[in-house]
């Protein structure tokens, strides 16, 4: 079996095993082990030569993203190992939680590695169903409602994406003929110039709306704050860290196909418009949030908007900024969710007003969260600073009049995040929740992942190794 297939199927085998395990500690440990082996496989994948293996294709775009998924998959499992005992799951919920988690990880890898647009669609669909299960796992009315809204909106979204995929093949069919090849991304890109431009336009609209819903772009974002606020924290981390990336990659693939046809309407401005709308709406929405996890979910909308804007801008610089932004956002945002997750457990509430003065009451967690929120807000030396700097520079040099609203959105969002940083971490400490405080394991399994993510984000932002930079440049070259 080729290595990329192993990357996909190994977590699924793990999921089958985890669904059979009723004991909490054992299941959490096996989950950790499966994630660790997945990370090893993802590292090995870096050494695989680029090329096709049936329905999958390893290239410079998916190698770093699969590695990122595996890293966040492992750190999230570590976090989950330390926290899962506090959730009071019965054994059915426990099986559903761990099983869905690994199914999600496998589907996420498949969505990134798939060359065939149909297979990619199926992978995103499986990932959606697995994440809906994880959002609903608490079973509270709010969680059920969030899961239902998530599922209905994303169900319509992915249905429209399938319609777009069908039209895409319809456009290519006279050129590529019959067979599986007709949905291969590489083949479609190669023949796009000879395809019917009208059909390509129609296909792009459906793919953008469909996968854009999953990527949380305004005005299709309604499910995201609920889904990230009501499920377990680990699902918020992988939703904002991974699923949004897979959806954005799907949008990008559609974009590169349509952009290869000179007669089709250029797709870049659509992405830029949706991206800018997301940035601006989220920047203002951030000020009105009173729930910490919803606030950071809105911040995900803002960052996906920035990435969409960067990809829409295109060119080598814009695309590179977008890729760096995706990677940096995944790392820093999941770090914030880990910290906020432990803080909500300590204080017994997700409300911002109820979590205050963490630096005074729990210095280690408080300072970690200070740095993590600063990283999400785009402070140097972390990756988001580098990507935002690159993006604003690129925008100013090509469309100076767009730099103004973009800069305004960035500024308002940063101010909102600094504000929430002060409320959560500084000031007077709020009372802790009643009951026994979390043990040392809970703290270690939170702070460890946070600092691993922050270190990686700093490396990405300030000292990217030559190999990594070359890989990203190659991916940007492929997508521009």
């Amino acid at each position, binding site marked *: 079996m080729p290595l990329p297939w192993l990357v996909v199927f190994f977590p699924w085998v793990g999921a089958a095993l985890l669904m059979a395990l009723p004991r909490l500690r054992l299941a959490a440990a096996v989950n950790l082990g499966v994630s660790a082996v997945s990370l090893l496989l993802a590292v090995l994948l870096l050494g695989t030569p680029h090329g096709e293996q049936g329905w999958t294709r390893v290239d410079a775009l998916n190698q770093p993203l699969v590695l990122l998924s595996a890293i966040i998959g492992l750190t999230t499992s570590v976090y989950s190992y330390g926290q899962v005992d*506090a*959730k*009071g*799951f*019965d054994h059915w919920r426990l099986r559903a939680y761990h099983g869905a988690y690994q199914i999600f990880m496998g589907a996420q890898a498949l969505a990134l590695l798939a060359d065939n647009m*149909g297979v990619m*669609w*199926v992978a995103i*669909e499986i990932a959606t*169903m697995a994440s*809906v299960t994880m959002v*609903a*796992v*608490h*079973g*509270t*009315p*709010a969680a*059920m*409602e969030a*899961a*239902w*809204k998530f*599922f*209905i909106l994303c*169900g*319509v979204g*992915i*249905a429209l994406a*399938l*319609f777009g995929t*069908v*039209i895409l*093949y*319809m456009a290519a*069919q006279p050129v590529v*003929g*019959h*067979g*599986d*090849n*007709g*949905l291969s991304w590489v083949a479609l890109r190669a023949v796009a110039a000879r395809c*019917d431009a*009208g*059909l390509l*336009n*129609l296909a792009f609209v459906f793919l953008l709306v469909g996968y854009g819903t999953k990527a949380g772009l305004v005005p299709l974002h*309604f499910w995201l704050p*609920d889904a990230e606020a*009501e499920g*377990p*924290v680990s699902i918020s981390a992988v939703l904002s860290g991974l699923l949004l990336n897979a959806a954005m990659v799907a949008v990008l693939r559609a974009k590169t196909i349509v952009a290869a046809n000179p007669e089709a309407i250029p797709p870049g401005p659509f992405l830029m418009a949706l991206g800018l709308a997301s940035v601006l709406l989220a920047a203002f929405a951030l000020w009105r*949030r009173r*729930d910490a996890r*919803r606030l950071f979910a809105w911040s995900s909308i803002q960052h996906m908007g920035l990435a969409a804007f960067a990809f829409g801008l295109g060119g080598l610089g814009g695309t590179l900024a977008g890729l760096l932004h995706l990677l940096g956002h995944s790392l820093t945002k999941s770090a914030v969710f880990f910290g906020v997750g432990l803080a*909500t457990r300590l204080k*017994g*509430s*997700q409300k911002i007003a109820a979590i205050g003065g963490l630096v005074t009451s729990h210095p280690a967690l408080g300072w970690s969260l200070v740095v993590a929120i600063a990283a999400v807000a785009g402070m140097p030396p972390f990756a988001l600073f580098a990507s935002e700097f690159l993006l604003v520079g690129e925008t100013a040099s090509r469309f100076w009049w767009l730099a103004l609203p973009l800069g305004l959105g960035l500024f308002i969002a940063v101010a909102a995040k600094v504000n929430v940083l002060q409320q959560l971490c500084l000031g007077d400490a709020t009372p802790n929740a009643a009951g026994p405080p979390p043990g040392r394991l809970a703290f270690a399994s939170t702070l460890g992942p946070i600092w691993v993510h922050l270190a990686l984000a700093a490396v990405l932002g300030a000292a990217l190794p030559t190999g990594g930079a070359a890989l990203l440049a190659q991916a940007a070259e492929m997508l521009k």
Partner: protein
Amino acid sequence: MTFGQLPYDIAHLLGGAMLLLSFVLLYQRRVQAVINAFAWQGGVLALAAAWQGAMQGAPELYLTAVIAFVAKAVLIPLALRVIVRRMNLHRSVETALGIGASMMAGVAVVALAILVVLPITAGARAIAREDLALALSVVLLGMLMMITRRNAISQVVGLMSLENGLVLAAVGVAGMPLVVELSTAALVLVVFVVAGVFVFQIRERFDSVDTAALESHRGEGAGDGWRGEGASEAPRGGGQP
């Protein structure tokens, strides 16, 4: 590839019948009548897929047809009837949008689909473009149904009708790869949502596009925003993380 006149007409007839059933779905008030209309649409979809299989000489489409018939014309409607009986919904009548208004909106949506598809596909084969216009109309009518209905079952039926439109589009494109796999995967999606309704007894949909209602759903208002009576069925599992 040339088709005689009759096969071409029959494909259109079946597509048109699906569109007609979409309109029936749009205006039916009683939940059971909605389920019946959906079962008929599933049956017609199976016929359309089988007919395309015969026309294109693509035997795998027969498989799609059988799956569509068994799942959409028989099993899912049966399951929905059980749910309706369990939740005591069989007498309920919905008054979301008037019949006249929903019909007019439906006609507008179909006109939109035709206006979008026909000029764009001027280069494609006639049968493909007309099939696509029909399929897009079914898809959009399904979305319209999801927007106008308040009852969770009708909303799910809207999603499934939308998915019927997708399968109609997929079988209409000659040589579409993975058509069986994709239509089965789409079916899994709707079975998953039907199972969700079944297990959690969700009666009423949550407004997803109505921003006024969202205010109370943000978890930031006073109430928790849950309006379905099925809430008491869902056990509270543990505290917040």
